[in-house]
């Protein structure tokens, strides 16, 4: 496995170093190319692995690989300096069991006279032969947002409603000009869920179906072996579903089971007990009592970063009564149990990674801090974002820590990682630099940037209005979430009419073949806007916006 990964990496590196020679006679007329692929961090504070802190360090990386680390290392002339004196440098975070950028695979139509008791596997949500990579949008905006938070590598799960959606892949959050796929068929994804309306329809059917699939995969493999030596037998018919399961049975690929509660964890352990595959459980959000068992079975564990809502800090006055108080106490206890779960795993000496699935991005650091406040050590938290997932994913040789030979995946922080004031200054992924430092850009006179939020049928929609005045005419752009899921899009602002007390303009949105006319108008009071967004033919939706003091200017 490791050799395979390295091979991929090696081929990447070959390509990369060749890159400048493949311009086919064209100059880099937009200035996209970087000047060098060699950088060094100077005089910085380095946290090479959880629990270690080294000050005054230099770190040299070239073509995405860390070449040297130390106080006195030789810096080649082509290396560009990144001043690290005030920075804390961590290994890039690794996300597990993440689905951003994944699209639902196409599922065949149900035939006429469809018999829901005997659907073809794909209709039943049983397609372990699908690969996450076949339905992955590289460079999707979500992953870029995760990178802003320090994630440089992620295990991507395929989408799909049923029990076996396909195999997972490992991808980098690297530069969009590169192919960022690290490895395919990383593990096989299983979950206790169904498509609905066909067999299997519930966990009852899922468990039974799994047992049948496993038995038949074994028989299929046996048939294959027999057929390879005895040609007078019935030929082996291709069965992509069973064939995809054989590597799991042979412990070549782990089975990654998603859990939504401790009963799922128990079911996963029962399945492993029966069939002895390598097991990773993701989405763990409870099950303190299961820790010893999980430890004994050497299960790869992935805890969720998603935490329940805090309903206890602010309880309305009218709700206090003995009965309410009692129920609240118990719910609060359950809440605190969730917050302290990672700490419990750590104390038991059980390594685990984290998954961002279901996590609201803005809660990432907040939730980790909550876990730390409730018993998880800072080293433990860092380990769950770096070393441990690397171990579970069997990529410790190239990721998870900062040392010579590892991939140049780093997070540069303004302070120690989990302190309240810490900000991500820069993320280095695959040797590429992503600068998130706040530059002290000033607003050009006459320019405005508004951050808006609109309530539409599809939920909340957010974005920015960038407006510039030139010769008394306002022009600009509006950014919005693509209704088709294509990430952030922009459109040109037209017919802008702006006074001190009002703001109005229109723009168009392309949805498939349709063009939607959108009109925005409303009142301005100081720094805030409140008004209406009319989508022609659909209706009116309320919009609120805030004027940014320091708009980012690119």
């Amino acid at each position: 496995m490791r050799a395979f990964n390295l091979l991929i990496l090696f081929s990447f590196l070959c390509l990369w170093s060749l890159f400048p020679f493949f311009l086919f006679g064209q100059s880099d007329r937009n200035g996209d190319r970087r000047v060098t692929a060699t950088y060094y961090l100077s005089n910085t504070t380095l946290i090479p692995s959880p629990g270690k802190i080294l000050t005054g360090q230099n770190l040299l990386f070239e073509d995405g690989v860390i070449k040297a680390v130390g106080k006195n290392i030789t810096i080649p002339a082509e290396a560009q300096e990144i001043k690290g004196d005030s920075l804390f440098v961590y290994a890039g975070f690794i996300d597990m069991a993440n689905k951003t950028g994944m699209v639902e695979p196409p599922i065949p139509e149900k035939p006429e006279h469809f018999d829901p008791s005997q659907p073809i596997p794909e209709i039943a949500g049983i397609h372990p032969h699908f690969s996450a990579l076949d339905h992955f949008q590289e460079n999707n905006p979500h992953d870029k947002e995760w990178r802003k938070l320090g994630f440089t590598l992620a295990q991507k799960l395929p989408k799909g409603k049923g029990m076996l959606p396909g195999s997972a892949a490992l991808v980098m959050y690297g530069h969009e000009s590169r192919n960022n796929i690290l490895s395919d068929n990383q593990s096989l994804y299983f979950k206790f869920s169904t498509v609905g309306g066909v067999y299997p329809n519930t966990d009852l059917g899922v468990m039974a179906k799994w047992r049948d699939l496993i038995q038949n995969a074994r028989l299929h493999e046996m048939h294959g072996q027999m057929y390879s030596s005895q040609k007078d037998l019935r030929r082996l018919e291709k069965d992509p579903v069973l064939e995809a399961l054989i590597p799991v049975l042979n412990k070549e690929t782990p089975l990654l089971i998603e859990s939504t509660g401790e009963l799922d964890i128990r079911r996963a352990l029962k399945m492993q007990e029966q069939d002895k595959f390598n097991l990773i459980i993701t989405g763990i959000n409870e099950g303190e009592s299961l820790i010893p068992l999980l430890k004994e079975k050497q299960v790869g564990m992935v805890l969720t970063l998603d935490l329940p809502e805090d309903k206890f800090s602010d309880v309305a006055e009218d709700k206090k009564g003995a009965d309410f108080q009692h129920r609240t106490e118990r719910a609060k206890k359950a809440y605190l149990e969730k917050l302290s779960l990672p700490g419990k795993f750590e104390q038991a000496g059980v390594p685990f990674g984290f998954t961002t699935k279901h996590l609201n991005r803005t809660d990432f650091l907040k939730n980790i801090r909550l876990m730390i406040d409730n018993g998880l050590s800072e080293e433990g938290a860092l380990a769950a974002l770096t070393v441990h997932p690397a171990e579970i994913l069997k990529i410790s040789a190239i990721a998870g820590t900062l040392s010579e030979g590892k991939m140049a995946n780093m997070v540069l922080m303004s302070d120690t990682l989990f302190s309240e004031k810490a900000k991500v200054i820069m993320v280095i992924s695959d040797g590429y630099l992503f600068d998130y430092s706040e530059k002290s850009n000033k607003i050009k006179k006459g320019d405005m940037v508004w951050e808006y939020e609109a309530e539409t049928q599809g939920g909340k929609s957010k974005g920015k209005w960038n407006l510039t005045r030139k010769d008394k005419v306002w022009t600009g752009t509006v950014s919005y979430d693509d209704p088709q899921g294509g990430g952030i899009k922009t459109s040109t602002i037209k017919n802008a009419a702006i006074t001190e007390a009002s703001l109005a303009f229109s723009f168009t949105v392309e949805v498939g073949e349709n063009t939607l006319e959108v009109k925005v108008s409303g009142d301005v009071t100081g720094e805030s806007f409140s008004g209406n967004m009319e989508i022609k033919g659909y209706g009116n939706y309320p919009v609120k916006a805030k004027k940014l003091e320091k708009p980012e200017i690119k």
Partner: protein
Amino acid sequence: MQTKILLLGLWMICCSKVVCQAQNASKGDIFIKNAQVLTITNGLLENTDVLVQDGIIRQIGSGLRAPDGIPSIDATGKYLMPGIIDAHSHLALEVINEASSPITAEVKMEDVIDPFDVSIYRALAGGTTISHAMHGSANAIGGQNITLKHRYGTRDPDQLIMKEAPRTIKFALGENPTRVHGRGKNLQPRSRMGVEAVIRNGFEEALQYKKVWDDWNASGNDSKKQQIPPVYSSRLETLVAILEGEIIIHCHSYRADEIYMLIQVCQEYGIDKIVFSHVNEGFKVAPELAKYTMGASVFADWWAYKFEVYYSTAYNAAILTKNGVVTSINSDSDELIRHLYHEAAKTQRYGGLTDDEALALITINPAKQLGIAEQVGSIEVGKQADLVLFDKHPLSIYAIPQMTWVDGVKYFDRENDAADQRLKVDPEETLEPIFLHTEHHNCMRDVDFYFTGFGRNLFGHRH
């Protein structure tokens, strides 16, 4: 003011630790002195002591002496009976129906046991120590059931399983399977004819399956088979096991004709391990039930909730009993399971059963139907100490269960009963849902998906 004090008191009790945190599958010792012992198999023994050690009833008699260290209870004037057994229940299950196919013999209720269901505790508070957690009635041949011991407090579903219990499976006839598959999905069965056909098809396929595997197993040694391996099917494996007598059928049924049909089919295939459940019209074929089956498990008085139970009688249990059918009273409901002793008592109003006959309906008879009569169902030396102590005779309306033991471990004690017995609490649930006028019976849970176009009245009643 009084309410406030009451509420405060409740709250304080709740804040103290949940009482019943019994050890996982532990076995207990207890010495119950001077009780009115309703043995079931040996009548009423007055002023009698019962000694339990390591979860087993060791001695029954008067003037017994307990070894040191065994906790004892003075039960003077109180009635001790065996833990109540419910032969048809759906409590402690996360899922009830895998309604996607007319035959789902491969699915196992043991995969979806929910140890956090507070209904388990409530059942204990009603003296019920064993329940038969069944698949629903959506399919002609449903899933494999599991017999549970109510060891409430464990988080491990396996700790609830009664390991000694034999395998059982759910069958279902009549309106439910024909509605789900025939009307819901345009699949057979759509009629009672179809139900028979589906079951016969299943048995015939199982016989063919068995033959294919027997042939393959016989075709040379493992390294050199002469044939390719057949396809494995846990569904057909299970049906083969039924035909070979390894699994007891518990069949949801109402009408006499359908009951008789399945008796006929079973006779043809040599199956004698079959119990009919609900079996509202069982009284019409009582002699046949007595002769060919392991009995009938009925409701005390439910009727008229759907057409196939319109011609029912509350005298069903009495008629069956007097015709020599092994009869039990079941709950099929998280509510009824709380007072099966009262349900059994109704057979004294409707048919005048004796105390022994009435009590057998919820103890030794369901034990026989579940194949666990060697272990439980009566107070006898050597049996498992599942016991319940009542303040009055359990067939009296005024009787209140005081303590309940499973394997000699006390799981319920009315005197030290904390209000909130939930094992697991939703951290986001500060507004707790309330359940009013909900259907307590669950035979048709998890099949709603198939009825989006049918209108609500179809799920009004679900057993």
